């Protein structure tokens, strides 16, 4: 649970996030998605409740333990949060510079490998101010995976991006989750992401977990609030209508 000044923002959320798949938390703006994500990574303390990482409870951990746990966490922020004064390569190398015992050459090699993985090696020497929003997100993904994290958190990875770039980012997140066998938790309000990569989908509404299922179940769910959210988009409403027509014709 999480309260802000007496207002309940998250209420009895009970969820398990699976390894090796993309877990997506969806919901309208103000439904508590980002607060939940911040609670999960320890940037915000929940008012009550427990958060377990492979049996280790984040709540009540000492600051040193939290910092050690966080070395297993990679996070993609909404605005990418690259360090302005460092080049893309230096940004990706930063976690290695801080925590890796590898020598500089090996650290650089690892950073370049991660940049190549997200197809950003050509922009390694540029500053964040010199690259586009989509490139920033890709560089931030490279930074998030450079220490081989067990858990990857993504806060609105597609915000501010065009549909094509959004799809690239979605596919990248999905591929990385599978290739590195990590637990990925994505917060999004983008239904395209849900359909593209949402292996496990959790729908939040006004701080309450309303529904949980897979991407194939989202379109046919009988939850009214979820349907309101999903079919608020013309595209998805038309897809649903088309599916119904096809199904009717099939019966005939």
């Amino acid at each position, binding site marked *: 649970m999480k309260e802000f000044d007496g207002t309940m923002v998250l209420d009895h959320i009970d969820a398990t996030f699976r390894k090796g798949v993309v877990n997506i938390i969806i919901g309208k703006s103000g439904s508590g998605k980002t607060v939940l994500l911040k609670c999960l990574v320890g*940037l915000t303390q929940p008012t009550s409740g427990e958060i377990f990482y492979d049996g280790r409870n984040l709540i009540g951990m000492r600051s040193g333990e939290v910092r050690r746990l966080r070395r297993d966490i*990679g*996070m993609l922020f909404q*605005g990418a*949060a690259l*360090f302005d004064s460092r080049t893309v390569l230096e940004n990706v190398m930063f976690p290695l*510079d*801080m925590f890796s015992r590898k020598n500089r050459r090996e650290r650089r090699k690892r950073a370049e490998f991660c940049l190549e993985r997200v197809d950003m090696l050509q922009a390694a020497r540029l500053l964040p101010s010199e690259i586009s929003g989509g490139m920033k997100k890709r560089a931030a993904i490279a930074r998030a995976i450079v220490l081989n994290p067990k858990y990857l958190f993504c806060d609105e990875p597609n915000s501010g991006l065009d549909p094509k770039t959004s799809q690239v980012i979605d596919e990248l997140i999905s591929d990385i989750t599978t290739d590195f066998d990590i637990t990925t938790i994505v917060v999004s309000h983008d239904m395209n992401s849900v359909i593209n990569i949402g292996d496990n989908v959790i729908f939040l509404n006004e701080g309450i977990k309303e529904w949980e299922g897979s991407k194939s179940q989202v379109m046919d769910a009988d939850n009214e609030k979820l349907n309101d959210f999903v079919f608020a988009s013309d595209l998805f409403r038309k897809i649903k209508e088309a599916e119904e027509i096809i199904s009717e014709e099939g019966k005939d």
Partner: protein
Amino acid sequence: MSIINSLENVGEYALLMKRVLTLPDRISQFLREFLKSVYALGVSSIWIVVIISFFIGAVIVLQIALNIDSPMLPRFTVGVVSREIILLEFSSTIMCLILSGKVGSNIASEIGTMRITEQVDALEIMGVNSANYLILPKISAFVAFMPVLVIFSMFMGLFGGYIICMVLGTPSVETYVYGIQAFFTESFVWYSIVKSMLFGFIIASVSAFFGYNARGGALEVGSASTRSVVINSILILATDLVFTQLAMG
């Protein structure tokens, strides 16, 4: 209510300093940030220190020369009094008040912008002690460079006086030079340097505190920057009073 808020701020500042004043995670990264800060906060401030010190030094000598016009006082008094003003108060206190505007707002806005663009959160998520990583190099760099700025200021202030004597001829250059050497107390220089290092700590840490706790958007970063300059100025003046009484009284 504002008293409670102020006390809360003092408590939060103390807690932040507890996180800041610890051993860095990586010495090499600390040194890198330290050197960057030496340049950004110290070296880049030399020009403003030089210009202001030169003109204020010249004005101090001019004012004293014009206003001390008693046959009871020898003309070299102008040099003696100007030197004491520059060494004891101008080069440390007044210069730090000016630097709190330049350096203080620089630190508060830089860290504040990092806060609102989630760069501070990104550091935390990586398991980095963000307070220590961001603030300790700035405090240590500014405190370490402060004596250089103070010495520059002293020389330029006295040099400004020299030039005004050369231009106006009253007092003569020889009398002025004699005056600035007469009854010289070396400990005043050390007093000024120690005091400025203390002010340097206040400027860097208080500005960092306001930047680190900035929330919201660009408006809040601007407001944090302004508040840091105001609070720094008050703290510098209050500390000057206490320090002067303790050290000289």
